[in-house]
């Protein structure tokens, strides 16, 4: 079987197209590359949508934690503490079983036990908490002069937030937020290791890497392949966020533009 044939058979296996049975024996390098790469679709899917939705909630949580209203401040702080203080691994388990229990009582929760929605929600809440803390930190370090200038121009309320505070917050938070994004993509690998079932063996990259490692008793091929894919993904994320960073700081003269300093997090 040629490599091209393998790619046609297994390239979209993770989302359910192509050959139904996974390869059973005589694993070729090509099969491993194709299947693990096909699993990356899920990692990208989880990471992308969790980040996209999480960005808005994170802004709300960050602003909430800095709010002067005691009720809002407390609830935002607790949200952040709960999701940052406990392992994501346990959150996945808890989320899965919570949805399972809800499902047996209300039919509405049927899709929530599937990974594509349930895990996405857990990841979404988790990244909102982490990014919320980052945004809160950025809000605290907005230069006093900026807000005073806004006041002097007579900007108030929503306009003041949209024109001055929010852009400055993003500018300050962006390097840390980039780390958070990288880190979120890494933690998408946890999804199928927890309760969420890989329906019809449609799993993520780690799921397939583990499959190969279990079948061949040789971790030295699938895991480095997985690592390679993740390094590429990380580089893509860094370059995309770098572009946004450039746009956020486009008003500054060339030399003063802050560079992204990346210090990836380790685990959550």
């Amino acid at each position: 079987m040629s490599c091209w044939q393998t790619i046609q058979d297994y390239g979209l296996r993770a989302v359910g197209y192509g050959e139904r049975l996974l390869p059973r024996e005589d694993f070729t390098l090509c099969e491993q590359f194709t299947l693990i790469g096909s699993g990356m679709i899920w990692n990208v899917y989880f990471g992308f949508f969790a980040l996209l939705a999480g960005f808005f909630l994170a802004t709300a949580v960050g602003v909430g934690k800095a709010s002067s209203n005691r009720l809002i401040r407390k609830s935002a702080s607790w949200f952040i503490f709960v999701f940052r203080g406990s392992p994501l691994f346990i959150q996945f388990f808890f989320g899965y079983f919570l949805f399972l229990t809800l499902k047996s009582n209300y039919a509405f929760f049927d899709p929530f036990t599937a990974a594509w929605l349930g895990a996405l929600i857990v990841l979404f809440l988790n990244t909102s908490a982490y990014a919320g803390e980052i945004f809160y930190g950025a809000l605290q370090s907005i230069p006093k002069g900026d807000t005073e200038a806004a006041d002097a121009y007579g900007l108030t309320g929503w306009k003041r937030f949209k024109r001055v505070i929010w852009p400055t917050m993003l500018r300050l938070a962006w390097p840390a937020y980039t780390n958070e994004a990288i880190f979120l993509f890494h933690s998408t690998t946890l999804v199928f290791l927890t309760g969420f079932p890989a329906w019809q063996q449609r799993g993520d990259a780690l799921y397939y890497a583990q499959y190969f490692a279990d079948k061949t008793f040789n971790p030295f091929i699938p895991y480095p392949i997985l690592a390679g894919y993740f390094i590429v993904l990380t580089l893509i994320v860094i370059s995309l966020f770098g572009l946004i960073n450039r746009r956020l700081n486009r008003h500054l003269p060339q030399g003063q533009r802050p560079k992204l300093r990346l210090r990836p997090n380790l685990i959550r």
Partner: protein
Amino acid sequence: MNLYWSVLTVLTLLGITAPVALAFGFAGASAARSAFAPLRWIGKTYIAIVRGVPDIAFFLFFVIALDQAIEYLRHRALCPDWSEPVRQGNDFVVCQAAKMPLGEAPQWVHETYGFSIAVLTFAIVYGAFAANVLFGAMRAVPHAQLETAAAYGMSTRQTFWRVLVPQMWVFALPGLSNLWMLLIKATPLLFLLGVEDVVYWARELGGSKTPRFTDYPHGDWRMWYFLALLVFYLAFTRVSEVVLDRLMARLTHGQATAAGEAQRKAA
């Protein structure tokens, strides 16, 4: 009962891993500062290699890799006249005497072996992170201090142990306390390494029980078990935060840093 034991397992893991990882990190950071180039490369590679890749992949990789490395070494030592290759296609074959642990060993040996492999894996991965933190901390110690030590005629080794190491902790502590939090949150991953830890027992005990097999039948309680675990971890994180804050305050005492200055003024 097993659940309580497994909580103890988690605590033991933390208790053993933290010092071992710190030792690994210390060795790595010292190596990365070494004047001897190959040693420096080893240290720097060790620090650099863990970044950019999901740590879960590392955990899964190291456990099999370590296991196979140990068996392979024992195989070479114990069965010199074995002619077949170790890697036969998809199988990893070593002679009976080299199996680790031995096939006839009692159950607790198997469990202890699995646990030690897990500890070693954690120590290697977190050692790299700790090495990174300590390397930064060593560089943060004001250079004048080291020059003064040299001016007093201390040798490189004396400078390292008597001046650099005592002063670096205050710079290292924020990073290390971060790492400790991460380590706490990484402990559920033991489950993936095949150790019967809290996650395993929460799943086992929480599942539906029928009156036929147990005296205490109940429905699917796994949700509540995991909620309890969540609270346990939250409480643990909170306590660690408080303790580490105190430790930081103590270490800052008398240091030539902004926080130390503030403490002096407040007193």
